[in-house]
Each structure stands twice: as C-alpha cells, then as structure tokens.
C-alpha cells in the first residue's frame, strides 16, 4: 500500500474518532443527529476507500448501506421523531462536558495502548484502524451512559455500531453476509428503539430515561 493510501485510510478513521468527540460535546439533540449523520458519511467514505485499496468490491455495498441507512434514513427518521415529540431543548447530562471529554481522551489512549501491541500481525493499516475503531466503540458506550435522553442513547448505540463496522472492514476476510446481517440487526434495533421512544413518550410525557426508573416493577 502506498504511503498516500495509508495516510488517507488513517485520516478517515481518525476523523471518525474526532467526530465521536464532537458527538460527546453536543448538547442539543438536533446537533447530535447532524454530527451522527456526518460520522456515518465518513464511515461510508472510509469503507469505500478500503474497498478500493483492498480491491474488495463487496465492501462498496457495505459503504452504500452505511451511507444510505446511517447517513440518510436513520438521522432523518430521528429528526422526525424529535420534531414530533417537540424536544429541541437542551440535553440533560449526567456528567459535565469537560469531564466527559477527559474520560473520552483517556479511553482513546487506552484503546491505542491495548490494540497496538496485540494486533501486530494485522498489518499497519489494519492495526491503526482497529485502534481507532475500538476508540469509537468506547466513546459510543461512554455516550450511552452519560446521556439520559432515550434518543441520544440510541445515537450512542448507533455510533458504537459504526465503530464495529470500521473494525470489520479494517480486518480482511470479513464476509459480506456478516456485514449485511449486522446492518440489518442494527436497523431492527433502531425500529424497536423508535417504537419504544414513542411509547415511553406517550406514557410518561418525557423521553428522559430517568423517569422510567421510578416505574420499574419493584
């Protein structure tokens, strides 16, 4: 692989981590959704570039799915949900922005420290991609636990899944069937989440999951 291709792959994967930080930083739901769409588009670019550089045409399909479903349908649908629910207000955060960013930095460092020595055989590109992907996954998890709003938790989950796809494309030999089935399961999960968000809203007049905790069956 030429140094230029290496740099481009590196740049795209690194951008995803940066966008993950942007996700953590956003405090409005519409902003979160827009940034998520940007992350999905970068993911599509990264996957498409891998498809070109690895010469693996089936990865183009993965990129297309990522672009259409994650970059288009899901953010639009979430926008609609947010509009219909009328929750354009500021997001409640459990932990402050500064602390969240610091924890995110630590997690990224951890991902790099863990992956670089372990994945020696994966080749330089795969190795760095894996480190970035693990960072995106950890940041997605961090987003899920630092937000109380059900919609932003869904976005955190989707962003985590973006990291999984990035890791999968970086590793050679991942079959298309697996990627498609992962994509579909994410779609189903999104539908389930969406229905639940509406139900929660109908029932409790809020999508703050904190409200749910008072209504558990014990």
């Amino acid at each position, binding site marked *: 692989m030429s140094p230029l291709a290496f740099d481009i792959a590196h740049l795209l994967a690194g951008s995803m981590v940066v966008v993950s930080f942007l996700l953590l930083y956003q405090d409005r739901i519409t902003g979160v959704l827009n940034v998520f769409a940007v992350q999905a588009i970068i993911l599509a670019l990264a996957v498409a570039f891998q498809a070109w550089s690895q010469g693996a045409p089936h990865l183009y399909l993965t990129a297309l799915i990522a672009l259409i479903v994650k970059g288009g349908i899901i953010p639009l649908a979430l926008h609609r949900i947010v509009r219909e629910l009328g929750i354009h207000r500021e997001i409640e955060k459990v932990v402050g922005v500064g602390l969240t960013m610091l924890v995110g930095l630590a997690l990224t460092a951890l991902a790099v420290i863990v992956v670089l020595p372990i994945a020696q055989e994966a080749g330089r590109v795969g190795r760095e991609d894996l480190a970035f992907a693990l960072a995106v996954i950890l940041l997605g*998890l961090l987003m899920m636990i630092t937000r109380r709003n059900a919609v932003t938790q869904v976005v955190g989950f989707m962003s985590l899944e973006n990291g999984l796809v990035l890791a999968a494309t970086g590793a050679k030999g991942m079959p298309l069937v697996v990627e498609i089935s992962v994509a579909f399961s994410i779609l189903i999960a999104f539908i389930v989440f969406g229905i639940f968000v509406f139900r929660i809203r109908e029932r409790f007049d809020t999508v703050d999951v904190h409200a749910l905790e008072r209504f558990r069956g014990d």
Partner: protein
Amino acid sequence: MLEFLVLIVALLAASGALGVIRALDPRRPLLVYGIALVLCLGGLAVVLGHRVMGAPVLRLVLPLGLPWVGVHLRLDALAGFFLLVINLVGALVSLFALGYGRHASEPGRVLPFYGPFLAAMQLVCLADDAFSFLFAWELMSLVSFFLVLVEHEKESSHQAARVYLLMAAGGTFSLLLAMGVLAGADGGYSFDAIRGQERAEATVVSVFLLALIGAGSKAGLIPVHAWLPLAHPAAPSHVSALMSGVMTKVAIYGFVRLVFDLLGGVALGPSVIVLILGGISAVLGVLYALMEHDLKRLLAYHTVENIGIITAALGLALAFAAAGFDLLAALALTAGLFHVLNHALFKSLLFCGAGAVLHATGTRDMERLGGLLRRMPTTGISFLLGCAAISALPPLNGFVSEWLLFQAILQSPILVSLPIVLVVPAVGALLALAAALAAACFVKAYGVVFLSRPRSAEAAAAREVDPFSRAAMLAFAGLCLLLGVIPGLIVDALAPVGELLLTAHLPSQLGNPWLSLQPLPTSASSYNGLVLLSFLLIAGGLTAVVLHRFGGAGLRLGPIWDCGYPDPAPSTQYTATSFAQPIRRVFGTVLFRARETVTMPPPLATAAARLEVRLEDPIWERLYVPVARAVLAAADRLNPLQFQTIRRYLVLVFLSLVGLLVLAAARS
C-alpha cells in the same frame, strides 16, 4: 476377561431398571438383591482369575461417551484389588440385604439405585481416561445421594443429603481441576497420555493438593469429612455398609490412582501433609465416635478414623518413595491397602450388625439398648468379632494391617530430612492413641448394646434376625478371622500393585513356615496369627475348663451389686455417656468445649437432679459455619445487582469492559 467384567457392570446398572419394576410390587421377594449377589460373585470370580493370571494390564475401548474419544477401560493390579474389595463386600452385603431388605418400608426408594451404585463404583476403578473417571465418580455420588434420601420423611435426612450433595460436587470439581491440570494445555485426557508427561514441580503440587481435597472429601478425611457422619447413618443399613465400607475405599482408589500412578509420586514436603492429615483424622475421628451415642453415627465416625489410618499409610508410602526407599514404600502401601480391605470387611459387618439391631429394636440410640447378646446371639458374636477387628486385636485382620503400618513407621528413622523425621514418630503416636481410643470406644459400644440389662421395652423384646442376615454377618466375621490368621494371602495379592506403582514389592509370604508374616527380610520382626489363635484357643479353653472344674459348674442367679441402693430400673446401669465421661473430661473439655452443668434440686425437695453435657463440633463451628456465613453475606451484598436500572447496568458493562482492557494493556 475385562469384557466379562464390563458385562457384569452393565448388568448391575441395568438391574436398577428391574428395581423400578419390582418396587411397584413390594410384597415379592427381593430379586434385585439376588441378582446383585450373583453378579458380584461373578465379578469376584473374574477379578480372582485376573489375579491368578498374574494381574496383566488389560485394555478395552468402548464406542460410547464422547464421539471419537470413546470410553477407555483398563484392568490392572490396582483396579483389580479394589474391584475385589467392591465385589466381595457387595456380594456379602447383597446376601444380608436379601433378608434385611424385606423389612424396608419403601423398597422403591432403594432398589432402583442399589445396582447402579455398585456398578458406578466398579466403573470408577475401571476407567482409563479422565472423562469416564469423572463421569463414574459423579454417577457414584449422585446415586448414593438418592440412597441417603431414602428416609425422606425425616428432616435430618434432608440436611444430610444437602450437605452430601454440596461436598460431593465440590470434591468432583476439585478432581475436575486436577484432571485438567494433569492433561495440560495439549489436553490428552486418556490416562496413558497423562502418565507420559513431564511436569513442573508447581504443577505436581497443585494436582496433588486438588486430588487430596477431591478424593479426601469423598473418603471422609478431616476436615472435609462433615458429610460422612450425617449421610452414612441416614441411608438404610445395608447401603450404609456399602457407603462406609466400599465407597470411601473407591475414594482412596482415586487418590492412589491420581497421585501414585498418574502423577508418579510427590516430593517429601507434600507427603508430610498426607501423613499429618491422616494422623489427625484418626485421632479426631475416634474422639468424635466416643462422644457419640447413636450406634450408626458412631460407626460412621470410626470410618473417619480408619480412613485416617489408611491415609497415613499412603503418606508414609509417598515419603519413602520420594526418598528412594522403594521396598519400605511398598511396605507402607501394602499396609494401607490391606487396611482398605480389612476396614471394608469389618465396617460392613458392623453396619450390618447395627442394621440388625435397628431392625430388632427400632432404635439406634445406645442408651435405649442393652442385653442383646442373649436375645440375638449370632448377631452378638459376629458384632463382637467385628469390634475386636476394628480395635486391632490379634488374631483378627485389623491387627495385621496396623502392625504392618507400625513396622513401616518404625523404619522411618532411615528418612533423615528434617520435617519428616519429626512428623513420622508423632503420627505414629497419634495412630497408637487412636487405636487405644478405638478399643475403648468399642468396649463402650459392645458393652452398652449387647451386654447389661435391656434399657427399654423394645430392647427386651428383641428377636434374632433372619438367616440371610446372619449368614452374611457370620461370613464377614469369618473373613476377618481368616485374613488375621493367613495375612500372607493378601500381602502376596498386593505384590503386583507394589510392582505397578513403586516397582518394588514385599517378599512372598505364603511360603513362610507356619503361615508367619515377615514383611522385611532385613528386620527380625514377624507375626504369626496361627500361633496367636492357637494360644488364645488353648489358653481360653484351659481357663474355662479350670474355672468350671474348680469353681462349680452350675449357673447361679443372684442380685447385682448395687452399692446398697437397690433400684430395679435398668437405666441406673452404666450408660454410654458415663462410660465416655473420663475420656470426655480429658480430651473433650478443650477439643469439643464440653461443659457439664449439674442442676441440683433445692434442699428437701424430692425432684430429680439433672446433669447436662454440652458439646460443640469444633470443625463444624470454626470451619463450615464461617464459610456458610461468608457465602450468605456475599449473596446478600450481591443481591442488589439484580435490581439495577438500565443505565447502571450499562455502566457496569462499560466499567468491566474498560477494566478488562486495562488488564490487557497492563499485561502487554
């Protein structure tokens, strides 16, 4: 030959199904026990034939169990000896059960498990790969668990079965780990693959400790004995005889197979642990038994004592082998395995006798028994022989094996390294103490149960048991005497075992003049059961003749000397509690925290005075209760984890993921 044995084991297991059918019709004679008797005799014939052929190593692979692995079976000298024990005792106990089992209130709870229990124990001895071994071991535990639960209407049976199941599971788990470590990373689970491996010292020690815990908990070694005095008495008496007499020996087999055969022995240090545990088990077991007044529980505690003696012998054999004295190791091993057979015989005899007493009187409480010798003479005589044998009195078999063990202990100054040279004499002293206390305990048991006047109406109305039971007990007693007089039979039979495990064996004994036993050619000490027996017969006969000739032959009946307070109530006799009092005061005050409180009536009142004795089980209180408390407390602490919010669960998942990643980062 091995095929015959496998067929017999399979038929024994299948007889469980017959037991289910027979159980539906409880009035019919107990065909299941008859079949078990015949099959055990067949097994005995095969094993004896194998021994006569010189105990060659026979193998068989059955296409059962795990696919492509199969079940590996192997019959060698060691397995053959334990199969001899199982089949011999199994046959006699089945004979006893032909009569005794007739009185079972719910035969449907015993019959389906009786044959499979015998089969599982034989399968443990035949197994030649880790999977079959553990499967058979667990089968043995599970089947006997159901046999412990037979008297299901009693709360004590439930507790016994629970404790038993828990400790059996723990023991099997420990053996599972031992097998895993033995097989190593490459995972060769057949015993042949395990034997051939080279191991690091730490691996050997960890396997040894795991095997000690796993087999020790099944055998009833202190401190993992807690289930034994609960579970053995809870089962019906013929099953108690099998559990105490045979199943604990199968556990000993497991230990010998793992440590002597698969591991090829251990260093001096670990063998000291075995020695010390054996000595402690022997003394504590007999002290527990002395404090006990339930006949079957007393016998169960004596199993702990005898397992201690066997374990001490095995530890000594390990120590001698580690120091390179193979002949002395063979002496100690022979003593231990001889005691395995002896204990299987006399403990089964005693449990059968206790079952006969239980059936005749309906109680196991010694304080309600008495005077049974005149009412049940055959049971009384055979029980007396069993008591003498377990108390290691010559010319019975118990004496021979303990004598052999002491011969080995007396040779121990040859071991010069520091801990062992101090430990062996101390363990010898403990064993001697245990032997003396065991004699005291059986004087108590026999005196209170069979002599004196009956202490309750049930004891006064006792009747001798049926001919099958009597025949079985007499056969047991006869074997105890036979092995005491001709011990060379067994010492010679054990020679191939020593050859297999230690590449050394004792010189052949059967060629010695007058059946005498001289285990070491270099040492002058020898034992001759025949001379002792003749002396006892002649001296006893002469004494009887002289007494009757000069002391008047007529039987005279007169009042008992009662210290001037004539009280006809039989409860004023010497009781089991009073017999044990001196020993309780010497040992019990510290060990069992025995406290006696005397409540006197006020002056001039006619109320009875009251003496209360409180005992504590130190091992149960200090070892088991804290563990149980810790488990409960931890469960209480962890319980809130079941009732968290989604976000908390996510945080937990996240934190554990990060923690694992940090661990991975720190390692690399």
